[in-house]
């Protein structure tokens, strides 16, 4: 699991220590970055707890333990803040998945398993972020829908580029349907909070993702 954003986001917002106002030598851009991350961590926690629709900027500010003015220096609105959270999270998740697929040795099912394992580990590393993005994302409407389309396309491309050459000719865009199915399986699991550790879904998600590729591909995962 990479550090940086994931590591920061895995801690409660209040644990992201405040930068003492004045009296330090940190560059303004470092302070601004730190504030931004603090706000995003607070937003994830608040949205996961209350739901996107119910949460207010005041809730986010309280969760982040930051002044309201600092929020509006970074984001124009609740939606603006959530979209930044969504973009950061999906970019980080995609990097984890594609990195894991590229690093994995072995045939297609092993690479697919590695990618899914990385995705589930990413979600388990920050349950509040996972719930905020996966479960509450659809609540935002068109701006997230567009981003989701882009994410599906990127993940489907990963699935498509790695698939075995000797698989039977598959229907066009079957990978998009598989990715969509995986998303909603994760959605329901996070909505129901079952299983508590998303990583336990790995075997069933691998089995599901390999459906179009036939029993030989599935058997190869062991």
């Amino acid at each position, binding site marked *: 699991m990479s550090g940086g954003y994931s590591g920061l986001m895995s801690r409660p917002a209040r644990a992201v220590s405040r930068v003492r106002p004045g009296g330090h030598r940190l560059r303004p851009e470092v302070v601004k970055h730190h504030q931004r991350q603090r706000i995003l961590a607070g937003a994830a926690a608040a949205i996961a707890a209350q*739901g*996107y*629709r*119910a949460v207010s900027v005041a809730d986010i500010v309280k969760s982040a333990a930051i002044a309201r003015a600092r929020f509006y220096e970074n984001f124009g609105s609740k939606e603006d803040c959530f979209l930044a959270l969504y973009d950061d999270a999906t970019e980080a998740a995609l990097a984890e998945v594609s990195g894991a697929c590229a690093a994995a040795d072995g045939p297609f099912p092993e690479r697919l398993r590695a990618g899914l394992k990385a995705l589930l580990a990413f979600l388990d590393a920050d349950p509040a972020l996972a719930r905020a993005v996966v*479960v509450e994302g*659809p*609540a935002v*409407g*068109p701006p997230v*829908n567009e981003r*989701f*389309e882009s994410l*599906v396309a990127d993940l489907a491309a990963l699935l498509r580029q790695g698939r075995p050459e000797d698989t*039977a000719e598959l*229907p*066009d*865009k*079957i990978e998009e*349907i*598989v*990715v*969509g*199915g*995986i*998303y*909603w*399986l994760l*959605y*329901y699991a996070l*909505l*129901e909070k079952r299983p508590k550790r998303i990583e336990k879904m790995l075997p*069933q998600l691998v*089995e*599901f993702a390999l*459906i*179009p*590729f*036939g*029993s030989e591909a599935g058997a190869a995962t062991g």
Partner: protein
Amino acid sequence: MSGGGRDRGAELDAEWDRLEACYLERLRLVAAGEVGLADRLRAAAWESVRLALECPRDARLLVVEPPVAGRRGQRRQRLLTARLAAMLDAWIAAEEVPGASPLLTGWIIATFYGVFHRSLAGGREEGLPAEVPRLMFLIVSAYAGAEAAAAELDLPPPAWLEGREHP
């Protein structure tokens, strides 16, 4: 959810109740005319497409709006999912599909929901007819294998779709 003194939440619940009952009854009716699991699932898929094409507002209320509507909507989503799962469990049990995964019902619901949500949320319901064959290919592959599923790609659409312009 509230406005003008009306309990919009209660109104929404009533509308959801009506739509869900109507939708589930339609699925039962179309499936009752079929014998095998694939035929029932396909009939259900095409009936869902018909709803999306003829009543897109209602389809969006069933599929797109629940996640948007906060905790109340998520509760509705759980309810509809549970009812669909019970229906699918009964169809699968009636088929006695050898080697079918116990997870098959969940996979079917997630896959169908994924296809319909993406299309309806993006205002692309006119593209749904093209999705049904590949949707059915994936679902039938899950319990009968890719060879059996390949036949789904060559089946003609239902008669009611003929003459209707779609991509």
